[in-house]
Each structure stands twice: as C-alpha cells, then as structure tokens.
C-alpha cells in the first residue's frame, strides 16, 4: 500500500499539469463570445466553426505538411543514420552527428527562419550565388510556401529521426547479417526476413514522432510565413492575440482541442498499423 503511495506524486503531478489543462480546453471549447455584447455563453458554435472555411483549410494544410515532412524526414534521417553508423572512423563521426542531432532537434523558430532567410531569402547568400554568379534564378521556388516550409522543417525533423533511430539501428547486430550470409541468404532476403521486421516498428514509430513534431510546430512557421500558408498552430496563436478581430479566443481553444483529438486519432491509427505489421511480418 505504501508502495502505491510512492507513485502518487507522479500521478498527481500529471493530473494537475497535464490532464487538467486539456480537460479545461475541452470544456471551454464549448463557450462562445458574442461579438457585440462580449458575453460568454455555452454553445457549439466555436467547435462547429472550426470544421469549415479557413479552419478546415488550416487543418488540411497542417496534416499535409506534417505527413510530407514526416516521411521525407524519416527517409533522410534513416539514410543519414545508416551512413553515419557504417563509416570507417565510426566513433568520432557517430558522436559528432548524434550530439549535433540532439542540439538541432531543438533548434527552431526565429533563429532557424532567419538562417534560411539568410540563405535563400531575397538577400540570401545562395540566392545571390545562383542569380548573380551562375545566372540561374531559384526556379520559382519560394521559401514562403508549403514547399519552402517543408524544407525548413526538415532541419529539425531529420536530426530528430537520427536521434530516435540510431539505437534501433544499433540493435541490429552484425552477427545476424553474418549468420544470414553464412546460410546463403541474399541481401534482399536478409532485409525481408531479419532486418526489416526488426526495424519496421521503430521506423514507423519514429515517423509518427516526426509527424507529431511537425504538426505541433509553431514558432518557425510564424516567423517565416505568417498567414500565407494555412496551418492550425498559426490560427490558434492568432486567435489568442491580435489587433483586428475581437473575441476569437474560444475558437482558438476549439482549434487546440481539434489538434489534440487529431493527434489522438493518428496515434490510435499508428497502434493499429503497428499491430498489423507485426502480424504480417511474423
């Protein structure tokens, strides 16, 4: 009994600082402010509003961007992790890349936006290189579009992938490959029956993590594109502060609730996919 009490602080803490805010969010999404009298009432107007028009566009935009960058980040991150682990002077390279990944995975917001502006913005060094020296333009590529944002997001998603997948890659013992070779299996067969099944769950898990991270990203998008690209996090922040439209905070809470629900759904989907994959590969 005393032992259960020992775990109590953790549950209490999580209840107060995690579950309570989410609960309050859920409840307050069902309030609305009248734009003329500024009174608050119970209503589903906020929740209904977020499924239409610019908000639906924002959800679709966020989901699209997160999905694309998650997959791209996973692919490049996996490639980088494999490349790093197999290198000859492995230890130093591994340490450099892993520590850099830990640092860059948290790098975002205005410094990151500015770094890219300094690179391929109007006055960027690469832009200048391409236009002045080489005579090419950026080929219609704009930093302030979905594509541009995706390019910037990869900057912290790829390191996150590397951080997450390296331990899984290391769990792939070289002895297994050797044993497989000794038994006469080809590379493809090794990956189909040994490497793949071992790596698939962590890779899918890591991709999910990247998706959640991209979906939740706010500061970077805000610094770079303002409202030019429809994203939910931007809409939420906009509803909390502004000089123009009045009384939109309840909509912001509904939007935030929507995000929580969506991420929850994706997690459930992931769990289902994972169970299926294991069954299929077994």
């Amino acid at each position, binding site marked *: 009994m005393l032992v259960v009490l020992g775990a109590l602080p953790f549950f209490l803490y999580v209840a107060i600082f995690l579950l309570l805010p989410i609960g309050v969010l859920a409840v307050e999404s069902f309030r609305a402010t009248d*734009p003329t*009298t*500024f009174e608050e009432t119970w209503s589903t107007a906020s929740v209904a509003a977020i499924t239409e*028009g*610019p908000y639906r*566009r*924002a959800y679709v*935009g966020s989901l699209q961007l997160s999905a694309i960058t998650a997959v791209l980040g996973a692919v490049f991150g996996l490639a980088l992790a494999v490349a790093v682990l197999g290198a000859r002077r492995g230890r130093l390279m591994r340490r450099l890349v892993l520590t850099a990944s830990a640092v860059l995975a948290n790098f975002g917001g205005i410094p990151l936006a*500015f770094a890219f*502006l*300094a690179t391929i*913005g*109007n*006055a960027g060094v690469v832009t200048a290189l391409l236009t002045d020296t080489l005579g090419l333009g950026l080929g219609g590529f*704009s930093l*302030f579009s*979905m594509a541009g944002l995706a390019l910037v997001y990869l900057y912290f998603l790829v390191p996150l992938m590397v951080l997450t997948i390296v331990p899984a890659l290391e769990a792939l013992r070289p002895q297994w490959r050797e044993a497989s070779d000794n038994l006469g299996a080809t590379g493809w067969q090794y990956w189909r029956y040994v490497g793949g099944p071992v790596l698939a769950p962590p890779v899918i898990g890591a991709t999910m993590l990247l998706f959640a991270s991209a979906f939740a990203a706010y500061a970077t998008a805000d610094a*770079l*594109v*303002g*409202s*030019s*690209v*429809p994203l939910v996090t931007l809409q939420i922040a*906009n509803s*909390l*502060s*502004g*000089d*123009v*439209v*009045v*009384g939109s905070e309840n909509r912001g809470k509904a939007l935030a609730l929507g995000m929580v629900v969506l991420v929850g759904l994706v997690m459930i989907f992931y769990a289902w996919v994972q169970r299926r994959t294991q069954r299929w590969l077994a």
Partner: protein
Amino acid sequence: MRRSTLRTAVAVVTAGLTLTACGSDDGGSSGGGGSDTDTATATSVEDFGGMDALVEAAQAEGTLNVIALPPDWANYGEMLETFSEKYDIEINSATPDGSSQDELNAVESQRGQDRAPDVLDLGTNFARQAKAEGLTAPYQVATWDEIPEDQKDPEGNWVNDYGGYISIGCNATVIAECPTSFADLLDPQYAGQVALNGDPTQAAAAFSGVWAASLANGGDLDDIGPGIDFFVQIKDAGNFNPVEITPATIQSGETPIAIDWDYLNASFTETFAEEGVEWEVHVPSDGLFGGYYSQAISKFAPHPAAARLWQEFLYSDEGQNIWLAGGARPVRLPAMEEAGTADTEALAGLPEVTGTAEFPTAEQETVAQQVMGERWNAEMSG
C-alpha cells in the same frame, strides 16, 4: 533558487493571513503600496486637488507598468524616458511587441498582480471592446476640450492619442525606382519585395494597409474587398513577401518595400541613414487611409495615480510634441497648430499628404474585419 522558493512560500502564507484577517476587499486596491481607492476612481485632475497633488500621489506609487510600447514606435522610447526622468517614476515596459489583444489579455489574466498593466495603447476597436468588458477607468485629461468629439469616448474610457496615414517605405539604395502609389506596386521589378507590417487579420497596421489599397482601387470605407483583391493580384504577380516588416528584415534586404504607418516608416529613415541605407517614405497618391490608436487606463491598475499622470503627460504639449517628433500626428495637433505650440520643425518633417482622409466608424470597422477574416486567409494562402 532556495531563496525564491522561501520567498514564494512566505508570500503565499503572508498574503493568506493578511487577506483572511482583513476580509475580502475591492480588487483594485490590492498590490501597489499606498494606493487609495479614491485614486482608482478619480476622473480628472480636480479629483486629486490639482496637478501637484496628482504628481505627489504618482510619485508615492513610484512605478508605472506599460505594455506593448516598442521604443521605436512613434517615438515611445523618448516618451517613456522623458516621463520617467521628469517625474522620477520607474517604468516597467512589458512585452513591447505585444498586440492589442495581448494587452487586454494581460489586464484580465494579471488582475491583482503587481505587474498588471496600468495604461493601454490599443487599436480603436479594441478600446471599444475594453470599455464594453469593463476593463477601463474613465478619466478626462486637463486638455480634454481640445480633443475633437469623434476622437474620444464621451466619459473618457478611451481617447485617441496619435495617428498617421498608410505609407509606402522604400529602400532607395537597393531599389532603382521607388513606388509612390499602390498601382506602382504591381510592377514586376518589385518581385518578392512588397511586405506588410504583419498579418492583416492580426495587426492593425497591416489591416489598414489593405484598406488603403482598397481605397486606391475603387473601394471605400464601407468596402474593403477591392483591397484584398489587389493584394491577391500582387501575390499572383509574385511581388508579395509574407515576412513581417522589422528593422532587421529591412536592413538585411529581405523586405525592401514596406507598407506601414507613415510614422513607423519615417522612424527608419534616420536609423538607416546611419547604416548608409537610404530610406524613402511616400504616402500613396491613390489611396489615403488614416488611423488612430487609443489610450485607456486599466480599471485594475496597480498604480492608478501614476497611470493618470501618464495620461496628463501624453496629452500635454510636451507629450504631444514628442509624438510629433516621431512622425505621428497627435490628436491635439489642430488645436496646437492654432495655438502655435506645435513643434514646427517636427511638423515640417512629416511626410507630404495630398487630400483629406476620412476615418472609419466603429460599424465600418467591424464589417471590414469580418470580410477580412473570411477572405484573407482563404485567398492569400496556399
């Protein structure tokens, strides 16, 4: 670290004991040492018994909390410094880059805390909202009668303070030919260079920029639609840059053309001249749109006397001239020009304006905001 934990604990316990001993009290008087409940409800200098008494009361409070006042916005830096030195009152300037909504949020969420804002500088619609939500305290400054009727709330819950016109700022060192009208902005030579001061659904400066474009393209104060159409055109022409204008983005060359309030653009001219960058400001010939911001005193101000003294200072000749020096048009300008108290040098430095501008009413603003909210994201994104 330990000390602050102890301090927090002591504060909580002491506060708890004091409050239970005294019984619950009116919210306005908690926090801020020595503040009088009468001070919080004073509506003019006479209620204090004269200017000197007001100064004394304010100095007794010793601090003023302001919010969302960037130092390079309409010369607020000089305004804050001058006030602080003149009356020996310390000023705490919170979130200088905050928006009007941030200010109202702060008043509500920080109510009862010592760091709550005392005075607010808001977009006009937000001033009206603040009054409707009961966040403001009415106060009529000494120069009340010189302020036009349509620039203030009848009881003094909010008063317009300074304003300007939408202008087009241009980095003449980088750009060969500076645009002087909205029509010019569609020229392909400005590819990726035209920027607003923020998001029009968020920032009053950007919102007004779109409205000015509307006036230049057949719209009027009842219709902001043509402005949005115009910006869609700019975006399709490849000239639009969504990055928010800051001195940084201009200096780095990212946003060489800035559509912003004339006083904000004008404040760049001097700073950039030092960096060797030539910055020109033109008020567009085809779309003249003016806008004012409004001052209000928080009903829950922790330092009510200092807040009222600040207002008196702002609307005195000295305060108004400081704004004038920042390129903004203070609300008492017509009266001051007549009386000859306006700073003539600063007056001459204002960007040239052709024609007279009309200012939108509250209803026109609400309609325009709704149109903007529905259309801007839909048409400008993706």
